[in-house]
């Protein structure tokens, strides 16, 4: 019986049992912390890097975001009369480099993080889905 020579009292286990019991009855600042996701959502911080948004007035279609994108996520496509970025979210790293390099501050990232979709094609966000200021402009 040498292998269990000490700790016969199982004091450590009893200590642990007390701590877990404190959690069961939520004694002393041990609250439930889970967020019931589809029903309630966590607050997204203002700096959150989610889906891109492009300012329709500011964007000059220069393509700096395209060249600086590490993963070749962005391509510049023609939309109406101007050129705007199109983002393939399926490949995006959400690194924010496109936002950093934009000379006109036209690119920004929103708090939209629910981007799952049924096929790869719909993950390509064209200017029609990325541009904001649209309604304001009219």
């Amino acid at each position, binding site marked *: 019986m040498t292998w269990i020579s000490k700790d016969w009292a199982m004091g450590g*286990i009893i200590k*642990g049992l007390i*701590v877990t019991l404190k959690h069961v009855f939520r004694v002393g600042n041990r609250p439930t912390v889970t967020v019931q996701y589809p029903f309630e959502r966590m607050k997204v*911080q203002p*700096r959150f*890097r989610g889906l891109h948004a492009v300012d329709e007035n500011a964007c000059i279609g220069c393509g700096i975001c395209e060249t600086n994108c590490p993963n070749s996520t962005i391509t510049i496509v023609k939309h109406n009369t101007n050129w705007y970025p199109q983002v393939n979210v399926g490949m995006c790293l*959400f690194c924010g480099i496109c*936002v950093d390099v934009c000379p006109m*501050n036209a690119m920004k990232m929103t708090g939209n993080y629910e981007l799952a979709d049924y096929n790869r094609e719909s993950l390509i966000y064209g200017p029609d889905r990325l541009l904001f200021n649209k309604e304001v402009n009219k």
Partner: protein
Amino acid sequence: MALIYSGGNNVESDELFINMGPVHPSTHGVLRFKLRMDGESIKECTPVIGYLHRGTEKLGEMKTYLQFIPYTDRLDYISAFPNNYAFVKAVEELAGIEVPLRAEYIRVMTMELNRIVNHLVGIGSLLMDLGAATMIMWGFRERENALQLFEMLCGARMTFNYIKPGGVREDMPEGFIPKLNEFLKDMEKRIDDYEQLINGNEIFHMRMKNIGVISGKDAVNYGWTGPTLRGSGVDYDLRKYEPYSIYPDLDFKVCVRKEGDSFARFIVRMDEMKESLHILRQVVDNMPESKVISSAEYGIAPMTGTPSSVSTYFPRIFAPPPGEVYSRIEAPKGELGFYVVSDGTTKPYRVKIRSPSFCNLTAIPSLVKGLKIPDLIAAFGTIDVVLGDVDR
């Protein structure tokens, strides 16, 4: 499995070959062990890695310096700030970039927070592998608070791309420091809880003590670093003995245990979390006021600026002078080094990543020889590898 009586007093059994992984609950990802077993004890253990190989080093040759930073996030995705910093430190040394003091403080703050996060996950997953699932949930509860802080700071929860050559991407937002203080206050009580739950647990002692013992000399020979090395009695911490950033100004002690077994490595991690809290408190108290990036050349238009206001346009070309550098830091898992060779262009000529998990995993075959599968899991859990870091 049939027992063969081979004469004498030795009862030998047939060998059993077990393929543990790449999909297995306790290999922390896609690690695979080829095990030759004698009953329940391991005769030979051969780790097979590479299932998560993404060619990060090759990618480094094809991306510019700034573009490569997001990819470093994906090495050790549990603690991405030190990865960012290690690469950026190499680039800064190569290009001789000065960093404002406030930026260094923010960097150290994020890295120490990340150390806490990493150890929470490491201890939690170790305990989960041993069958006590409570710890990982508690760990993730605190980790979530830290991730909220990260999200507040840089907009991402795990893949930050925050530390840039010359500073950090953005200054801290409003209300960050109070929230951090709250976290620190909270965390102290939580660590007490963890210690009560685990440290004295007799079953945990039975599982961890004298399991996976490695002497300090062997550990050095195997290239072990970080908490795993310090668990073997080697008093070494790059933050202390090859200081970088603002660590010389900070007061902290290096947590060392002599035993060299799994329990010692676990306790070192536990103590390091407390030391990190201590460091964080000093950082918060001494946070200086200055700009956070030395030159806009490497950086960064303000993210929250008003749209359509024309910011100054830079031809953001960043090319360090030709040269090579090996720069290393004390990441939570051990020594993380970047060997960067520049040929004067905008892209590195060669990026070599010395990842702590890879080197620490080297010792597994000798560490677990003769032990049992549960001991393999215990010993492996205390080495605390992340497969993104091993396979790169």
